[in-house]
């Protein structure tokens, strides 16, 4: 990112409130002060940090109108929605605001720069306030200093929004650096869902993505976030997500990861109120020399809460995955139920899966478990299907898609689920049956 630092981006420095300027400066300092991760850092264990470079990417000032129009047309994964925003290289290509009815109820859905102008107190309270503790503070700092694209969703007390808000983040330009930001604030007993979609214009544009998503779920709130990551395989991607769950919340996060040359996905759940129920699910399909580096942290600071996590990875060719998960139960968080499961399916002998499922339990009246399995397609199941007349290739494919389906069905939207199946099929179907 050397180039960026030499020429500071001026588009957000104008007319910004002082607090934001301070947060950006602090972020930049954090980015400059912290060293690049090394193989010796526990938080980066097994990741091929030697090949990690974020040099020579730059924010792109303007995408051409043609590209904006064309990509807007291609943004068609979710047709029923409460609002939608499309960014291309962090430039806003389209914005569909909330309905007047929802706006009247106090729902705010705005691009962040606009939200900073119109709702400064709200933004000061929540924007860039929460970063993960999983090893990417340096990159969070860079995000904070450079972010200009992204959306904030604010749902006031008791308001329920049925349809999802959809955010598309595209990359298009050569060696573009993008910093998408999703901020969700759900107040007491409200309900909302958001879909974040990360796409590349084509197979060849190289890009750097450092995305941050912060979910704040107030007492009794129900929040459902879905993430679709299908960058091209020239993209270096970081997604640094946090969820803060207050009492009796019901928060669900489902991520489907298909793209990027290397993707670091950090997902931190902090439970701060009793009775919270947080679920994190992820499906990753990796091919060629892709590397998926997943770090999760389930922090239980309050009693009587439940967290559940299931990460499934299917690996082809020379791809690698790292799943490193930690459940931490604080001394006062009695009656915690926390679960963590990682399933890796190795479809080629050269693929590699690493699992680091961890627990740190400081309370005694808890139910905690983690499981990690890695293996190939089950021979017995294969034999069973073949003995019933299903050809081997078909049986294999059925089993692999069966493996995916456990996560896909959690999307709870037929249209999006079918679109995701299509994305996976397009990319991998031929390989899966070789």
């Amino acid at each position, binding site marked *: 990112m050397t180039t960026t630092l030499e020429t500071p981006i001026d588009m957000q420095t104008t007319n910004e409130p002082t607090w934001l300027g301070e947060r950006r400066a602090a972020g930049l300092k954090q980015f400059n002060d912290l060293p690049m991760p090394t193989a*010796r850092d*526990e938080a980066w*264990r*097994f990741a091929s940090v030697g090949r990690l470079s974020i040099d020579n990417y730059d924010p792109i000032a303007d995408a051409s109108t043609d590209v904006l129009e064309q990509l807007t047309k291609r943004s068609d994964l979710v047709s029923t929605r409460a609002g939608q925003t499309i960014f291309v290289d962090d430039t806003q290509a389209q914005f569909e605001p909330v309905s007047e009815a929802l706006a009247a109820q106090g729902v705010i859905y705005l691009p962040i720069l606009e939200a900073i102008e119109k709702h400064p107190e709200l933004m000061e309270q929540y924007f860039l306030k929460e970063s993960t503790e999983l090893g990417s503070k340096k990159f969070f700092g860079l995000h904070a200093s450079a972010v200009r694209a992204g959306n904030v969703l604010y749902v006031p007390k008791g308001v329920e929004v049925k349809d999802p808000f959809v955010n598309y983040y595209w990359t298009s330009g050569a060696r573009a650096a993008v910093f998408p930001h999703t901020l969700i604030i759900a107040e007491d007993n409200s309900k909302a869902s958001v879909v974040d979609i990360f796409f590349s214009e084509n197979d060849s544009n190289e890009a750097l993505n450092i995305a941050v998503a912060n979910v704040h779920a107030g007492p009794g709130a129900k929040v459902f976030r879905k993430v679709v990551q299908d960058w091209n395989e020239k993209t270096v991607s970081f997604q640094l997500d946090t969820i803060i769950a207050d009492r009796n919340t019901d928060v669900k996060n489902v991520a489907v990861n298909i793209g990027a040359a290397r993707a670091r996905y950090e997902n931190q759940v902090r439970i701060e109120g009793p009775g919270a129920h947080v679920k994190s699910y992820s499906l990753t399909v990796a091919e060629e020399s892709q590397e998926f580096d997943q770090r999760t942290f389930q922090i239980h600071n309050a009693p009587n809460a439940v967290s559940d996590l299931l990460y499934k990875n299917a690996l082809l060719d020379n791809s690698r995955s790292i799943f490193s998960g930690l459940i931490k139960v604080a*001394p006062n968080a*009695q009656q915690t139920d926390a679960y963590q499961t990682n399933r*890796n399916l*190795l479809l080629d*002998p*050269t*693929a*590699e*899966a*690493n*699992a*680091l*499922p*961890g*627990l*740190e*339990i*400081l*309370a*005694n*009246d*808890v*139910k*905690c*478990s*983690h*499981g*990690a*399995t*890695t*293996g*190939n397609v089950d*021979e017995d199941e294969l034999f069973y299907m073949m003995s019933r007349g299903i050809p081997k290739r078909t049986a294999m494919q059925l089993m692999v898609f069966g493996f995916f389906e456990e996560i896909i069905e959690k999307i709870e939207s037929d249209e999006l689920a079918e679109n995701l199946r299509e994305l996976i099929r397009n990319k991998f179907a031929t390989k899966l049956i070789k």
Partner: protein
Amino acid sequence: MSDTTIQEEAIRVDTEKGNFKYPENYKYDAGVGLTEDTVKYISDVKNDAEWVREFRLKALEIFKNKPMPTKWADEDLNNIDFDKIRYYLSKGQMPARSWDDVPDDVKETFERLGIPEQERKFLAGVEAQFDSEASYSRMKEDLEKEGVIFCGSTEGLNKYPEIFRKYFGKVIPTSDNKFSALNSAVFSGGSFIYVPKGVKLKQPLQAYFRINAENFGQFERTLIIADEDSEITYMEGCTAPKFETATLHSAVVELVALKNAKIQYITVQNWSSNVFNLVTKRGMADEGAEVKWIDCNIGSRLTMKYPGVVLKGKGARGEVLSIALANDGQHQDTGAKMMHLADNTTSNIISKSISIGKGRSTYRGQVHMPKHLKNCKNNTECDALLINTNSRTDTYPAITTRGENNTVQHEASVSKVSAEQIFYMMQRGLSEAEAMSLAVNGFVNELMKAFPMEYSVELKRLIDMEMEGSVG
């Protein structure tokens, strides 16, 4: 009285138990602190061959250059003051050959440990280590006839270099970690065993270790070589008296199982709660060979021990079964390592830990299938039991898998003794403490069966001692 108060009340340990020691009267003493001179002194006393002398000095260099592994390990390690430790002392006695030659005070110590004199009748040979040197060493004549070598490290390296030099420091290189380097520099005592081709030892070989000098680190070195088609079971047990200042125990144990050989290494330890117990244990299993570690850790201030097996030959098997019990002020940081380097290799890890009071138990494991291997399997299970509200447990496994038709499964669970269980037993007339004891015994029972009978009795006794007060 609330549930927890009763439990906490009940789980006070009788710290006086096993708390005995005898006057120190050591002929050789390398003094306090670690310098090149200390190492040279040890070499002189032990009459080391030139290559052993060089090996020690090189190890000292590595030890000094390696940082403490505190980026992942317990910060308590920083409290070890290497300058205040005695690295060698010895009675200056030759390993004794008959029980009558053993000094009376040593005999008395063994009696307190509950090792009956008659036990030697059942044992193939007893290598009882009193501080640095083997104070007692005896092998049954028929074993000697079969060509089994069972001696101390000094004798092994001096008398049988052609057998032991080849594997000495090869399974665990000096630079493996800071403490293996330390041991390589100042090792003394321990057992060197060679079992020739085809010899299957029906009875286990035993060694009892004790520490009995304040500020004295014990750095025993054990190397067991089981030649093709041979079988051996080795047992070690420890109990240490209580000291005023911290004591360091840092052993290195290397096992070599050649083609189709079987080695079983059993440890039951009960260090006093000021001992740093930092041990490196690793076995190498050739084609069709089997290495099995059975490990029970009780006591100590901090134990760091991760027995490992390098599965080097096709069809090799590795196993680690471990029980850890952490009481107030103790941290049991234990685990296992399985390195799969050949096809059709299998490994199994079962770990159970119990945390009492403010005790902390940690499982740290590594399963590695890095190459393009076929048909390898690993199964890992770790279960933790938390007795009190402020007990703590952690699990940090690391698993790498590649290759064809390999399966790895890891499962861990954390639980407490359920209120229903206790209630049920109390309904039937047991006191709460008895019920608690029964539940804890039930938790480890399955694994206890893996231990040889004599040891499972001793182990139950150790766990009962540790739970004392709660278990009536």
